[in-house]
């Protein structure tokens, strides 16, 4: 079974149609926990992108060698390996950003999105297709996190990427930890609303 989508379509698919945060509702923990600033979202997005792309490629490369009965343990091992690598690299070269993300980099190992893409896509498709799919999923996650971070940072702290743009703090509420739930819920509802408006407009035409 080979995918009929072009590489570009695979990437767009990951960002829009199958956005891991807003459409598949997977890997919600970081989306709620540390999406307080754009920078945090970007950093964790990079880490997930790295792990997703490398795991997808590894599994796609060895797909014939993996025994079907130990499929899941092999996936877990692969993901855990790449998570360890990115964890060590981030801790070594970007210690300040790493300190902000806390335990979440290590928790990438339990993100459902990565295992799911390995099972659904990389174990059946070619290395190239898996690579682009991984890029799409990783970018989708990153953009989702950055969108959340944008809203929360702008409304909560009045800054973007640490630069003061508003000069005051409109709603401190949004940057408080539990507001992640409200923010995700509201944004999801907003996207649902956009979709329904778009569909209605399409029907009328």
């Amino acid at each position, binding site marked *: 079974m080979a995918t009929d989508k072009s590489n570009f379509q695979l990437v767009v698919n990951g960002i829009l149609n199958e956005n891991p945060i807003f459409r598949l509702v997977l890997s919600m923990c970081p989306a709620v926990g540390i999406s307080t600033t754009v920078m945090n979202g970007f950093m964790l997005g990079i880490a997930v992108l790295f792990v997703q792309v490398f795991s997808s490629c590894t599994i796609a490369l060895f797909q014939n060698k993996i025994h079907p009965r130990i499929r899941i343990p092999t996936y877990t091992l692969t993901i855990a*390996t790449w998570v360890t690598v990115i964890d060590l690299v981030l801790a070594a070269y970007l210690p300040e950003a790493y300190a902000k993300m806390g335990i979440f980099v290590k928790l990438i190992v339990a993100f459902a999105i990565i295992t799911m893409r390995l099972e659904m896509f990389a174990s059946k498709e070619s290395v190239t297709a898996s690579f682009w799919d991984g890029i799409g999923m990783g970018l989708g996650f990153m953009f989702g996190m950055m969108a959340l971070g944008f809203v929360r940072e702008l409304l909560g702290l009045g800054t973007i990427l640490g630069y003061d743009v508003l000069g005051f703090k409109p709603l401190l509420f949004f940057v*408080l930890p539990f507001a992640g739930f409200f923010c995700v819920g509201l944004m999801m509802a907003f996207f649902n609303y956009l979709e329904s408006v778009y569909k209605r407009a399409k029907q009328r035409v």
Partner: protein
Amino acid sequence: MKDIFTIVFRLTVACLLAGLVMGATFIFTDQAKKHNEHAREQKAMLGLLGYSANKPPPAGLTMHALYRYIVSEGREVSMGYLLPTKDRAFVFVAIALDGTFRNATPVALDPAKAGEEGEREKALAAALGPGKELRYAEQTLVVTEDGVRRAYLLSGRFPGFKTFISMLIALEPDFTIRGLEVMEHEEDPGLGAEITQDYFKKQFSGKPFARLKELAVVKTPLPAEYQQALEAEKRGGLDPAAAAAIMDQYRDHDIYALTGATISSRAVTNGVKAMVGKFTYRLAILDRVLAEEQIAAPF
């Protein structure tokens, strides 16, 4: 049965490959990690002393590291301090728990490598001989300028609201707090994470030791003029003279708690109190022992 062998074989190969990748990364990144951590700490320390890239420290300024160990020999416990001597060698001073001098052992250690825990341990084990168990406790830096003590830098960690808070504290020679820097924390953003902000941590600056002992946390809101003075270093802040005047006015005041994060504020205050209190207690004993035994320390 054949299935099991292939499964075992493939799993083994997968584990070996994974181990290879992780091991290689570990070896590759370990050096860089240590180097970056050291650089970050160094920068924070110089920052607390008032120096930065634009304002380099004077040539006469040196930092002497003092490493504290807990030595147990059988059931007997004593404190051990590894410190440099005037002729660029090291000496290990053992002090009994009641503050009496035990012994001093010269330690052969390369000053360039003294910053590494593994190297220190090796050198200490060689110098002290077998039968002694050493546990590393902490390091303290004594800053001197042309042989005169200018400041002390203490590092330590204590429990915050969520997990541990790592802190670096700079003290004047008379133990007045010069400043503090939060190195690591996992407090909530918007609430406890504000401990890293100037308007909280600068409240400690200039508190004399006698006042610090009785320092408490109050829940009244931070006065606006005090906040302006605390944040004077920000762009467009108060001019230094006016800020210093307001700071003087609040010198004897307790710490104003962060809004919605009284527990974090209290944890930091108590942590700083404990760190400084323990340090002054130990330094008094060590200084007395060094003077009595005429051990030539460079500070």
